């Protein structure tokens, strides 16, 4: 892949992510930031693939970088990080894989369906781990004042090990 092509891909990822942030109802002032996280995520993904690592590892690393970026931007604007994260990971989520899983299943090609299903699950787990690793960084690092105090008095059973 040449440099121009790489740049073009990243630009398309930026544009696509920004478009989907419109569909997700993000407020107007955050369109650019959403597109930016998406573009950076796709850039990392492409670069890791270029080294020759697997699709899942590339997805994991890209998610890690873009989740961290989302949290940095979120702390700057004082908004929930989900805004940027949900839009940013749209380029990485296994949308095509889950569609092909269902498609092959209905046209009767079960082996292909299983293969695509496994791929979709693998990518979803990679993304989840990426988000999980990023969210286990304390909120203070990103400039939030403190962790929520509500959790300190009692029941923590409902919170996962990486809920924030």
């Amino acid at each position: 892949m040449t440099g121009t092509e790489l740049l073009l891909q990243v630009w398309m990822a930026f544009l696509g992510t920004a478009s989907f942030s419109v569909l997700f109802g993000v407020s107007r002032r955050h369109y650019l930031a959403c597109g930016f996280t998406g573009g950076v995520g796709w850039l990392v993904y492409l670069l890791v693939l270029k080294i020759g690592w697997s699709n899942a590892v590339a997805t994991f690393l890209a998610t890690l970088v873009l989740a961290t970026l989302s949290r940095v931007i979120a702390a700057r604007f004082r908004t929930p990080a989900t805004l940027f994260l949900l839009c940013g990971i749209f380029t990485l989520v296994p949308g095509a894989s889950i569609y092909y899983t269902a498609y092959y299943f209905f046209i009767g090609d079960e082996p292909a369906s299983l293969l695509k299903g496994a791929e979709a699950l693998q990518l979803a787990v990679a993304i989840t781990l990426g988000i999980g690793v990023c969210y286990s960084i304390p909120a203070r690092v990103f400039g939030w004042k403190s962790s929520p105090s509500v959790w300190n008095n009692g029941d923590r059973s409902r919170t996962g090990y990486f809920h924030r």
Partner: protein
Amino acid sequence: MDESNFDQQQSEKERFDLVVEMGELILLNGGEIYRAHETMLYAASQFKLNGFQAFIIANGIFASAVVNQCMYSCQVRSVPLAPIELCRVEALNELSRDVAQGHCTPAQLRERLDHIKVMKASGTKLQILASGCGSACFCYLFQGTWADAAVAFGAGITLYWFILQVLDRIGLPKIMRTILSSAEVALFCFVSYSLGFGDSLDHIIIGAIFPLVPGVPLTNAVRNLLENDYLSGLVRMADALLTAGCIAIGVGIALSLGHLLFGGSI
């Protein structure tokens, strides 16, 4: 004496309603489960609700609090898995911060909640354009050519036009909506391709249906599962699989119909 006691009961009930409604709106518009939970706990402690407890899953809220000293009041809300509207989550987050700092009375909270409920970030035309633009970009990212992307752009535009202008007015169940809208997109792609636009039908279709595919619900499902929230994870997983199935059925129907009408082979 009796009357003031009654008033207090009423307002306690009202505050409880407000707290639960706040959580419900966050969940409904795409906020995470922990965010809804946390916001409710903050608001409850700020509004002096005794013994407030909440249990939240992907499509429901169960909450209880002590109203009138000794009586347990309980609320159960069913929250449908709806399309997300992130500007509302942002506004609610700001609201919950104000509530937690005590800058917001119950009356003000009611007013702001009613305002947030109908908030919208963008108009219909912008959404239709964004759908086309997104489809084209994703078609290109998935190895489509420029010609493919151009067709996907058109397909994406017709997709959201169809959803917003036609399906929203009829009011069909979710399954039928997904099947019909994906069939519409696939048919558009097939006809354009038959007329000689675009290079690869497969690439065009995958780009064009991207606004519909449940990639984010699937990821959220796995996230919930790994957070030990098995119930929410399974609910979302089932939703994602069902949506993907509906899209595949819609595309399948449209392609068979296309071949029947226009000839040719897969």
